[in-house]
Structure formats: structure tokens, C-alpha cells
């Protein structure tokens, strides 16, 4: 009988490539149906295949008992989580009515959207149709700091525009990064292990990755910059840097004046604006590109029409800065033995290592300096855009849904004709609220909260929370509650009852990733490519979930039919099935745009995408930037001295600054650090498997536990040193965290939604680390301190 079943299921095997939507990494998967069994496997042909706990549990998300099944309308007070089910028409019409009133009274810019990765490509289109610039994402508690640092030093953008070439690396330094995603990177590391790569993980707690063969360096939280500057110090003082690279491809030889600005031809009364260096060959000051042998350590006095000016090379300034952190000094700050710092520096330089450049990085509110230092460390050993080095990703030339230029918003329908009659839209007059305070940041949600509360720079009255979870994502829990209470309209679009749902006026059930088609840039691969999936499942019986894109377009159409009509969206799409044509038109436009950009036949490209789930346009070619193509920095070089920082009155060199929360100083005071692993995402921690796989305790080192008389499984009270917030937690005594530090997973525990019932009450266990955060943000980058400090009391 068993043999017969096997033959039968083998015959009935169905396979379809899909993009994983369990986190933002978009790994390649295969949806498999063998007989009556459904599960996911990695797409092994894909350059970036999955998988991890999250997609392996995806079917438990699909038919989750707590899935939002029908639109909900609030019947109690905000925060009470009391709802009644309403039909889709009622929900959409009532939301549209309120939206119309708000827009008519306060203008379209008073409407804001917040998002994570899901729907992030289309939300700017939706917001543009409505006429608001305010799409404010999660980056303030994620990757703002490394993104600004990448802009400063490499002229690059957000992750993964630059990433280590893991597969070919010989020595990988991960500071605060644990490869919790993308899993394709873990596969690359596995290949590098075949060749004996060494991996160093610098983190106050041992992430899951540290179970494998790595060197774990348990560092005092918030001191990473001192550690990296100390590595830089050792590399410079021992002469282990790549001088040829620094001279030619970085601004290390640039001469810097006492005011911090670079010396240019203009300073000498000349015409050009070229950056000047001291040429050892001619013993004279010349433009950088004219120098035969630019000096790295020149210091001297220059005659200018304005008088004498003392100048020093950028390299010398960096060396002086790093000299503040010799290993013995760094040991006092970081808790990492000086001998280890020295050894790691020498290993890194002689192996020509690569240091990871930051993704989920907002921890201590001082990470802009950290990532500047890390990028400089890569440059010091000349390992930029080389095989095994820190590489620029090839651009896929993936189109935006909307592009703003010259006061107009151009939609993808103007760029690619797919039979949708659309017009240019007027650009919003208002500036995005978070950009006023943090012009360089990708998004700062905390600034949106300030705008809601203070009504400055202008009032924000409506918020759509689309596929993201602000209470587990963001700092300033009380401010978030205050802001949610003040808004005139709050709408959540989601799959499961995240905590903010209790604060919303309407809750609309969204499709999960297996239930909708999707396309996007191939992420976390150095090749240029595109990823693609078609829906493989309908929502389970009883779940009337609909695509968030449709729901938002319907709200706009019902409020402002003329605005929707401007992008060819009419009443005929009110039927969700008819809407699939509209979605299809957008998909076609993207395919045409990509086919044009890469000189391909669109039909052929679509066919390939359907069959394989991805398409690679161009393989990574090494040694392009900055060797053949200038970088996007002011000088076009790698800027070890960030000239762009000067425009923002920001130190152009990294330095160690203390974290933006009170540092523990008494025996019962601890750092409380948080983080993720391959088992964590806001949604996947809510499946039943997570009850056993995800840890909702607070970790404490055995040394501390013994001193405090705390045993494994004991309940303690934690009190935030900055905000006085108190909550109880169960302690796990483990060697996975350094003494003086507590660790708990972000997003996993301390859930509060009233809609969490029955066997899913387990999500109330544990604490949400954001409750204890000081709520302070780093200037310029808008990166929040999600770590905190607490007092521990035995109960």
C-alpha cells in the first residue's frame, strides 16, 4: 500500500516557484504539492535560495486560526480591541467617507502610510494618487544608519546595494549582523566554509549563527565603533593597509584644512575645483588625478591668497582619530581583550577580510559612526568591489511605480503603454514630515509620531498601517499610543492581529504571500536580476482576505473618483477579480520596462519568470567601482573622510559615542539588548510552531544569575532605567549572552492584542524590548536606540 501511495503522489507532484514573503529578503522558494501534502522547498536554481524556519512554517500562517477573516470596525475605545465584523463595502465606504472629510479639511498631505517591506513598491504609487508624500517606513529602527554611512563613504544606497561577496570571502567580520536573512547568503557562507573561511561574529549575545564554527566576540553593547576604530588603529600603526588602493581610489591623500574642508585649486586662487594632494614624486601640490604618488601622511603649510593654511591628509586625520583607541584603551571600553583586538586586526588585514556593512542595525543610537568605521576598514585593506570583498550589487534597472520630477509625478503607465489611460499627477506640495528633521534618512517613523502629536510641520490626521507592526517595530511605545489616540482615522491592513490592530478604527484582512502574485528586484545577490511569483493558493475557507493594493485603491476611488481615474482606475475594478487585470497591467508595464532596459523580448522574459521564478540580467562583474566608474560621493572616490557629512555639520570621521540610553552602573543594572535570528519576523513568530521554536525568555549569563540568586525559569521584574517602565519576564540562564547583558528577541514576546486568544495566548509571554527603550534617536541618520538598560529585581 505504501508503494502505491508513493507512486500516486509522485505522479501528482505540482511545483511552482514563489518569492518568500516571510521577511524582506525575498528568497527563492518552490511551492510543492505532492498528493494532498503542501510544503515549501528552496528554489535551488535561484541565485538566492531560501530557506529557514519562517517559510518552513508558512502553511501555518496560511490557515492560522487567528487570521483576520473579515473587515473589522471598532466598537470600543481605541486600544480596547473591541470590534464588529462588517462587510467589505461597508468598511471601504465608511473609510472613504472619513478620508474625504480629512483631505478636504487638512489637505492630502495629512494622510500618512506606514509600511515594512510588503507592498513597499506600490505604496508610493497609491500615496501619489491620493496626493500625499507621507509614506514613512520602518527604517528608523532598521537600516537608516548604515544607509547614511554607505552614502557618505561609498556614495551608495540602502541594503543590499553593497554587500560582502560571501561566497568568495576568506575572512568575514560580522559586527552585530548574524545572517538572520537572507538565506542565500548562508548558502554562500557554506561554500566559503569549504575553502576554510574564517568568520568572526561580534555581538553581546551569541546569535544562532554562533552555534556553527565561528569566533564569537562577546562585546559590551554600544561599543562596536571603539572596537572597529581599534582595528583601524592596529592596521595603520603596523602598516598593514593597502597604500596603493588608498592613494588612487580613496580621498585618503586629500589635504584637509583646519576648518575641516578639503583644499582645492580654488583655495590657491586657481580656476578649477579639483581636490589637491601632495605629490611625493614632484614634491608639489597637484590635483589628485595628476599626482604620480599622492602622499598619505603629508602635513604642512600651504600659501594661499588669503595667507598661510596648515593642511593634513585625510589619512593622517583618520590615523589620529583611531589613535584614540589603541587596543588597551579599546579593551576598557569594549570588554574585548586587547590581544584579541590585535590578533583580529592582523588576521583581517593579512587575509584581506571583508566586514559586513549593516542591515538590521538600529541598536544603540550610535551606529552611523559604526558603519562609517566599518566601510573605512574595508577600504583600508583595499577590499572594495573585488572578488571576496565588499561589492556593489549590479543594478537590475527595476522601474519605480512612480517617479517625481519637476513638480510632476510620472507613473509607470506613462513610461510603458499597457493600455491603461493615465495622466501625470501633480507632485505633493508638502515635504514629507520626517524629511524635515532627518533629510538623509530613508524613513523616521518617530518623526511622524511627533508630527501627529504637535501638528508640526503640518497636521497628520489619518494613518494607514500596511503590513507592518509599529508596537514591536518602534521605540516610544507611549508616544505611539498618544499619536494613535489623536488621529482621526486609523486603518490597519494585515494578516494577523498585531498589537496596533487594537488601536485601529478599521482592520482590513490582507492576502499572505502565497495568495498573490509579486515581482521585485532580486535582493541579496550581487547579480542584477528580478524575482517573480504567481499566487499558488486561495485564502482558506472562511477567510475573506483581499489584496491591500485593491483595498487602498478602492478607498481612494470611493473618496475621490477623479483621482483614481487619473491612473485609469475606475469602478470596473471594484470587483476584486476584475482588479487582477489592473494588477496584471502593472506587472506587464514592469516587464516591458525591464525588457527595454536589457534589450530582451518581453514575452520571453515573462515566460522565463513564470517557469523559473527569477531572471538574471547580468552577472556580477568585479572591480568596476571605483576603478572604472566613479562613486556617487562628492569626490567620486571612496571617502574615508566623508565630505558630504560636512554639509550636515557632522563629523566627517567616525568616532565612538556612548549609546543613547543610560549605561548600567549598579550590580542589579543590565544592558537589555534585542535582536533577531532566522526564526523571527513579526508574523512568523505568531504561528504555532513558534510556541516551541521561538524563545520568549530573557537571557542572563550564569555568572550574573549566580550573583543575583536567579535560577533558570525564575520570574524577575525589569525596570527601564530611562523610562521607568516595569514588566515581568522569565529568565533563561545561558552562556549565549555576556555578563552584564540581558538579551531578548525583538517582536517575539509581550504581545498585547486582545484578539490573541486560546492556544495563541502564548504570545503574551515575555517582554517587548521596545517598552524599555529610551526613545532617543541619532541625529542625521534618525536611527533609534532599540536596546536599553534595566534594573532587575528578583520576585
Amino acid at each position: 500500500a505504501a508503494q502505491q501511495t508513493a507512486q500516486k503522489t509522485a505522479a501528482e507532484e505540482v511545483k511552482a516557484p514563489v518569492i518568500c514573503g516571510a521577511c524582506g529578503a525575498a528568497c527563492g522558494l518552490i511551492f510543492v504539492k505532492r498528493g494532498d501534502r503542501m510544503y515549501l522547498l528552496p528554489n535551488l536554481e535561484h541565485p538566492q535560495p531560501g530557506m529557514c524556519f519562517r517559510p518552513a512554517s508558512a502553511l501555518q500562517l496560511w490557515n492560522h486560526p487567528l487570521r483576520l477573516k473579515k473587515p473589522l470596525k471598532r466598537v470600543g475605545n481605541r486600544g480596547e480591541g473591541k470590534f464588529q465584523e462588517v462587510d467589505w463595502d461597508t468598511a471601504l465606504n465608511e473609510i472613504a467617507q472619513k478620508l474625504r472629510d480629512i483631505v478636504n479639511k487638512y489637505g492630502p498631505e495629512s494622510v500618512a502610510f506606514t509600511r515594512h517591506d510588503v507592498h513597499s513598491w506600490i505604496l508610493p504609487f497609491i500615496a501619489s494618487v491620493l496626493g500625499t508624500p507621507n509614506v514613512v517606513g520602518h527604517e528608523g529602527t532598521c537600516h537608516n544608519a548604515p544607509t547614511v554611512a554607505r552614502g557618505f563613504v561609498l556614495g551608495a544606497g540602502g541594503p543590499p546595494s553593497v554587500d560582502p561577496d560571501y561566497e568568495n570571502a576568506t575572512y568575514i567580520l560580522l559586527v552585530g549582523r548574524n545572517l538572520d536573512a537572507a538565506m542565500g547568503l548562508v548558502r554562500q557562507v557554506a561554500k566559503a566554509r569549504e575553502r576554510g573561511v574564517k568568520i568572526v561574529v561580534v555581538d553581546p549575545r551569541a546569535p544562532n549563527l554562533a552555534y556553527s564554527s565561528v569566533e564569537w566576540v562577546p562585546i559590551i553593547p554600544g561599543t562596536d565603533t571603539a572596537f572597529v576604530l581599534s582595528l583601524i588603529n592596529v592596521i595603520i600603526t603596523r602598516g598593514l593597509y593597502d597604500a596603493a588602493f588608498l592613494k588612487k581610489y580613496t580621498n585618503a591623500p586629500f589635504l584637509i584644512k583646519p576648518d575641516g574642508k578639503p583644499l582645492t585649486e580654488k583655495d590657491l586662487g586657481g580656476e578649477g575645483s579639483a581636490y589637491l594632494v601632495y605629490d611625493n614624486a614632484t614634491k608639489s601640490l597637484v590635483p589628485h588625478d595628476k599626482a604620480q604618488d599622492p602622499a598619505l601622511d603629508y602635513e604642512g603649510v600651504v600659501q594661499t591668497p588669503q595667507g598661510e593654511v596648515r593642511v593634513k591628509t585625510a589619512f593622517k586625520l583618520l590615523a589620529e582619530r583611531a589613535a584614540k583607541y589603541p587596543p588597551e584603551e579599546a579593551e576598557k571600553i569594549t570588554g574585548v581583550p586587547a590581544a584579541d583586538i590585535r590578533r583580529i586586526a592582523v588576521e583581517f588585514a593579512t587575509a584581506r577580510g571583508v566586514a559586513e556593512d549593516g542591515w538590521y542595525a538600529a541598536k544603540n543610537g550610535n551606529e552611523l559612526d559604526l558603519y562609517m568605521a566599518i566601510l573605512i576598514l574595508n577600504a583600508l585593506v583595499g577590499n572594495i568591489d573585488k572578488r571576496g570583498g565588499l561589492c556593489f550589487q549590479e543594478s537590475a534597472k527595476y522601474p519605480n511605480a512612480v517617479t517625481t520630477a519637476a513638480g510632476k509625478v510620472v507613473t509607470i503607465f506613462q513610461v510603458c503603454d499597457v493600455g491603461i489611460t493615465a495622466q501625470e499627477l501633480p507632485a505633493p506640495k508638502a515635504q514629507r514630515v520626517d524629511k524635515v528633521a532627518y533629510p538623509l534618512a530613508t524613513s523616521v517613523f518617530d518623526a511622524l509620531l511627533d508630527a501627529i502629536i504637535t501638528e508640526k510641520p503640518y497636521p497628520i490626521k489619518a494613518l494607514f498601517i500596511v503590513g507592518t507592526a509599529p508596537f514591536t517595530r518602534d521605540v516610544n511605545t507611549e508616544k505611539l499610543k498618544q499619536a494613535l489616540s489623536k488621529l482621526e482615522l486609523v486603518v490597519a491592513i494585515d494578516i494577523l492581529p498585531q498589537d496596533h490592530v487594537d488601536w485601529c478604527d478599521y482592520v482590513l484582512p490582507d492576502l499572505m504571500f502565497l495568495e498573490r502574485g509579486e515581482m521585485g528586484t532580486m535582493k541579496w545577490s550581487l547579480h542584477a536580476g528580478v524575482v517573480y511569483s504567481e499566487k499558488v493558493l486561495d485564502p482558506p475557507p472562511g477567510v475573506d482576505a483581499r489584496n491591500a493594493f485593491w483595498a487602498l485603491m478602492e478607498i481612494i476611488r470611493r473618496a475621490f473618483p477623479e483621482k483614481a481615474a487619473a491612473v485609469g482606475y475606475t469602478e470596473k475594478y471594484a470587483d476584486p477579480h476584475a482588479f487582477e487585470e489592473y494588477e496584471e497591467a502593472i506587472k506587464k508595464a514592469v516587464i516591458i520596462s525591464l525588457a527595454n532596459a536589457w534589450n530582451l523580448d518581453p514575452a520571453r522574459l515573462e515566460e522565463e519568470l513564470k517557469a523559473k521564478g527569477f531572471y538574471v540580467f547580468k552577472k556580477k562583474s568585479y572591480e568596476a567601482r571605483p576603478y572604472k566608474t566613479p562613486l556617487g560621493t562628492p569626490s567620486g572616490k571612496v571617502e574615508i573622510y566623508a565630505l558630504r557629512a560636512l554639509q550636515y555639520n557632522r563629523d566627517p570621521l567616525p568616532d565612538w559615542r556612548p549609546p543613547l540610553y543610560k549605561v548600567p552602573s549598579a550590580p542589579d543594572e543590565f544592558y537589555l539588548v534585542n535582536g533577531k535570528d532566522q526564526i523571527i519576523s513579526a508574523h512568523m513568530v505568531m504561528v504555532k510552531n513558534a510556541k516551541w521554536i521561538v524563545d520568549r525568555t530573557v537571557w542572563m549569563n550564569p555568572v550574573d544569575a549566580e550573583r543575583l540568586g536567579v535560577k533558570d525559569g525564575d520570574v524577575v521584574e525589569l525596570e527601564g532605567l530611562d523610562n521607568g517602565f516595569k514588566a515581568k519576564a522569565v529568565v533563561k540562564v545561558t552562556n549565549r549572552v555576556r555578563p552584564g547583558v540581558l538579551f531578548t528577541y525583538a517582536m517575539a514576546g509581550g504581545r498585547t492584542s486582545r484578539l490573541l486568544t486560546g492556544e495563541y495566548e502564548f504570545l503574551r509571554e515575555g517582554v517587548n524590548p521596545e517598552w524599555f527603550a529610551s526613545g532617543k534617536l541619532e541625529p542625521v541618520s534618525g536611527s533609534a536606540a532599540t536596546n536599553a538598560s534595566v534594573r532587575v529585581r528578583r520576585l
Partner: protein
Amino acid sequence: MRLAHLWDQSRCIACGACIAACNAANYRSSTGENKTWGWLRSNIKRIAVEKGPRPMLLLVQCQHCENAPCVTVCPTGASYRDVDGLVKINPALCIGCKYCMVACPYEARWLDEETGLPMKCMGEECLSRVKAGLRPVCVEVCPAGARAFGDIDDPTSEISRRLARSRYVRLLEEKGTSPKYFVVVGP
């Protein structure tokens, strides 16, 4: 033919993919509790050493022993060692006495309360996959290159090649079980 599992402790990053994929494929993403282990319905369990000098992890599942105590104690022949070298259960012969669960020194079997039958690696879907020439799901999903499966009698199989160039241990060898779950500890 002697089919066997390899798990590389030096590469495993504890991502949980194998554990959850086993649940999805073999137990249809069941949300019920595996009460024997206090765990999800999966044939793989995770043991962490929390107080040693450094964090350590062990994934444990059926070792497909050549001298399997579960087979020896089974009064009906339901537990048997197949010609492919895998230890299997014939549910038609099982009377639910649980001797096998007690006899296994690895505690690798758990009880499905609904059917009263013991469960273990390989699950139904993995057996069906292996029969069809596919890899078990835990091996197929592993992103860290920490797993292999195949015939240790075939020197050209992936598992044989990896064993030939690795240091490995077998668990509780002193019990005389002659286990075929190879724990690689380094190159």
C-alpha cells in the same frame, strides 16, 4: 545499501528550517503538540547546551541504528530494519505498546495521541520522496550545508565523500546500537 543521515554541527546555524519543514511535509503543518517531547510535531528535536564554555547545539532524530533496540524489543515486527538500511514502522502491525519508545536510548520516537502510534524519522512524505529518488525534506531545505543523506556503502555518494573528509562522532555508540546518524564536528 545502508542509507544514513549526516548532520554537521560545525555548520548548523539553528535556523529551524529542517524541524519546521519536517512538520510541514510529514505532518501537514499540524499545529498539535508532540506531547512526548513538549515540542512541535516534527521528527527532529533540538538540544542546546546553555552552560558550557561556549554555546553548543545538538539536533537529534532517529539514528537508523544497525543494531536498533526498537527493532529488538518490538513484539510484532512492526519496527523493522529495511533492506535500504532505514529503520521503519509498519503501522498495520503496530499494537501501540510503546516498547520501542522506551527502548530507544536517543528518545527519538514520539507518540501521536490521535492514532496511538509512535512517530519517528523518516516520516511518510520523506519515505515517499526517498523512494522517488528525492532527498528527505530536512536535507533538501538546509541552507547551511549542514545535512546530507545517502548510501554509506556507495563511496561516491555525497554522504560518503563528506564522511571521508570530516571528523565525526556517533551518539551513544557505547550502547552498541551502531547508529547511522553521523555528527560532523569539523573538517
